């Protein structure tokens, strides 16, 4: 008996008659987290984690129909028992667990297994079928422990200050920006771009406490930002606003920065491999912990990761989805740049 089906609109739960992170408009969408490639506009009804609600309203529209659940709070839809479980990706991110007549399917959305001090840590779940992402599905991707990363970023900022330079860190407004805020908290005043400021407000309106930041106005005084820490969305790389920052030292925070060629491509002063996705070991750890009979691998290195899983004796198949769409990210980044 099949519970899920991969369709043109998204991942469909057959008995439940709802979709998981659909990319085309549907009646009932269950959303894993607030990123643009997973939570799209046009759904008649949304179901998401409590902390994702205000993010969705901010990103899509205030008048959408949204229903929420806490982690581990079950809801039955057409006989399917559905529940959210921490995915450790960004605030409010959830793995979606579906249970129907004794069979369990888990859709991870995006996730990371390492703790980051800002999201509720990833919860391993046993299931029959496990649908996993594979953004960093190559063994070259191995993240450093959070403390080591933090140390590297701190050293970089302190060195910048010593050289009379302003530290500008780039990361997506939703998720990465809050992670960076936590990583640099306490070092100096943190200034955030308008787009990040608004996302922070949406997150805090759910009762979450974020590190203290100041909104970076488009017409900032150079003297007010000199030697401080600024966080901007990646769309602002090479922008006029960045050019106005006095003595800017720039750094991108992204898992892609693991590879030297990527660091050099962007023409920044530093690259830190800070990722909210599971690294190679994290993906394997999550798959093994699920003890699933069948693994479906979505966006990223799906062909490679599925092939490897089959070789180590775990039945796996790749699935083509519309997640991890760079163009969408780019469009979002462009939009953010104009906010």
């Amino acid at each position, binding site marked *: 008996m099949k519970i899920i089906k991969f369709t043109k609109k998204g991942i469909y739960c057959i008995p439940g008659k709802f979709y998981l992170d659909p990319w085309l408009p549907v009646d009932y969408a269950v959303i894993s987290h607030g990123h643009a490639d997973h939570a799209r506009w046009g759904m008649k009804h949304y179901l998401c984690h409590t902390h994702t609600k205000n993010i969705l309203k901010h990103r899509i529209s205030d008048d959408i129909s949204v229903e929420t659940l806490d982690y581990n709070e079950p809801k039955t839809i057409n006989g399917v028992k559905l529940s959210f479980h921490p995915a450790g990706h960004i605030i409010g991110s959830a793995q979606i667990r579906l249970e129907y007549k004794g069979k369990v399917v888990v859709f991870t959305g995006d996730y990371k297994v390492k703790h980051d001090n800002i999201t509720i840590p990833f919860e391993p779940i046993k299931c029959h079928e496990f649908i996993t992402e594979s953004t960093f599905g*190559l*063994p*070259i*991707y*191995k993240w450093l422990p959070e403390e080591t990363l933090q140390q590297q970023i701190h050293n970089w900022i302190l060195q910048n200050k010593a050289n009379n330079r302003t530290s500008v860190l780039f990361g997506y407004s939703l998720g990465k920006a809050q992670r960076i805020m936590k990583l640099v908290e306490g070092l100096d005043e943190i200034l955030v771009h308008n787009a990040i400021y608004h996302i922070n407000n949406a997150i805090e309106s759910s009762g979450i406490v974020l590190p203290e930041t100041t909104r970076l106005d488009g017409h900032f005084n150079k003297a007010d930002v000199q030697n401080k820490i600024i966080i901007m969305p990646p769309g602002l790389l090479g922008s006029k606003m960045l050019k106005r920052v006095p003595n800017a030292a720039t750094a991108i925070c992204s898992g*892609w920065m*693991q*590879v*030297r*060629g*990527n*660091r*050099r*491509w962007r*023409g*920044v*002063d*530093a*690259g830190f491999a800070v990722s909210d996705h599971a690294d190679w070991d994290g993906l394997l750890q999550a798959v093994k912990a699920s003890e699933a009979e069948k693994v479906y691998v979505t966006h990223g290195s799906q*062909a*490679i990761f599925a*092939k*490897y899983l089959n*070789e180590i004796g775990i039945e796996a198949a790749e699935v083509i989805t519309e997640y991890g769409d*760079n*163009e969408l990210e780019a469009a979002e980044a462009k939009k953010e740049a104009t906010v």
Partner: protein
Amino acid sequence: MKQFSELISAIEITNKTNAKIAALVNFFKVADDKDKLWMIALFTGKRPSRPVKSSLMKQWCAEITELPEWLFLESYSTVGDLGETLALLLPPPTHHIEKSLNDWMQELIQLKPKTDEEKKKYVLNAWSGLEAQERLIFNKLIGGSFRIGVSKKTLVNALAKLTNIDANQLMHSIIGNWDINSITFDELLSGSHINYDNSKPYPFCLAYALEKELDELGDVNDWQAEYKWDGIRGQIVKRNNELYIWSRGEELVTKQFPELTEVFKTWQHDFVIDGEILAIKDSSVLLFNDLQKRLNRKNISKKLLEDVPVGFYAYDILEFENKDIRAESLEERRKKLELIFKQNTAENIQLSQIVTVENWSELHAIREDSRSVNSEGLMLKHKHSPYHTGRKKGDWWKWKVDPLTIDAVMIYAQKGSGRRSSKYTDYTFAVKKDDGLVTVAKAYSGLTDAEITEISRWVNKNAIEKFGPVRTVKPELVFEIAFEGIALSNRHKSGVALRFPRIKRWRQDKKVDEIDTIESVKDLIVGF
């Protein structure tokens, strides 16, 4: 090795030459004497020979990580650099080793004659005691290019900034014969081991592209016309029985061209001659692509010397019998140059021929036909002009022939290396042949970073293969390809070989049915 590691990190991240020079200057201020010398040796091709084969390193990495070979290759094609791939794949270090660059290098030299088992023990111990970035550097110390964009010239500019010593003298000093165990950093830079008076070059005189009508230049008889050759501008310096060859990039390339060095050494007179280093076979100039095979090699095989023999076309003379004659007129200098070539002859070393014409209009036809001798156009030099320092407008003009262009469709894409390893930057293009397509060119330059990013995204979505470094893509994206020449070729499936193809622009306005056919491409061949 901490300072060296920081230096590499600082250099690799930036693509600004000034930032690289600043990092180098800083390193030379703080590092130990021996480490500084090793830094210079590593970046000027004076490194000891590789002590451990890369195939062994790959094998040991596979044993440790237990990864299948295909997955190793996928990782390699994503990273684009073997030393870096190994550094990233290996497990985190279990302890920390701190050694100076000099200690590492001395140990690696001693490792060379040892057995594979001893080598393995040594390398594995180093790998488990170094962080990923240090491990990458360690792998590069064993062998392979650092690929961080530091040329000899950049290095020399940093040393010149540090010491205020003339950059060309420093170039000679670091290229010259020196042994790391018997020289200090200061001695090396002061040039006590060389005689700079014998090698000192002059700045090259450079020409601007012609920007007016020919008759605006005045009387045709006041001008000397020559073919413009597409090789490497070189300066031959012969003084006191020593011979040096400088490239236009102010690097000493003497050892790269033994067939020039050996011949010039035997010639009468002392002189400094300006000319073009070219690949010349059976008295014909070969394509620059061929000459490229000879460049930046540590060892030149006998086969390569036979396949791509190098010659020299002399343009000008700057010094004769130790006297600087740059202020003399071109006419006068040419007489001295001709005298030298009367007294000395060699098949591969020739005078650049003067193209004689009665009037300007004759020159047009000669320029149009310049591709037929693998030249890229004409040079026009005023007969009364001195040999200027650098680029100066008015006396020397280059009058290049316009490139040929075709519209072709992309059929394969491949990732680049170094800075370009994260993107699909190398493309193969095809034109129509009968009902299908046939490959005509490979090109990897001419697009902006933004265009490459967009095309890479498109390739990711439209690739047919899932594994391996080359992606076959739907024939959909059309590009205008420019090239300098075209010839019939049996070695190419299409039957033609393009010279120096590059992407002129991405024709987003064109569809694949609008591209050229192999027949229309062949029509571009002169006299076909």
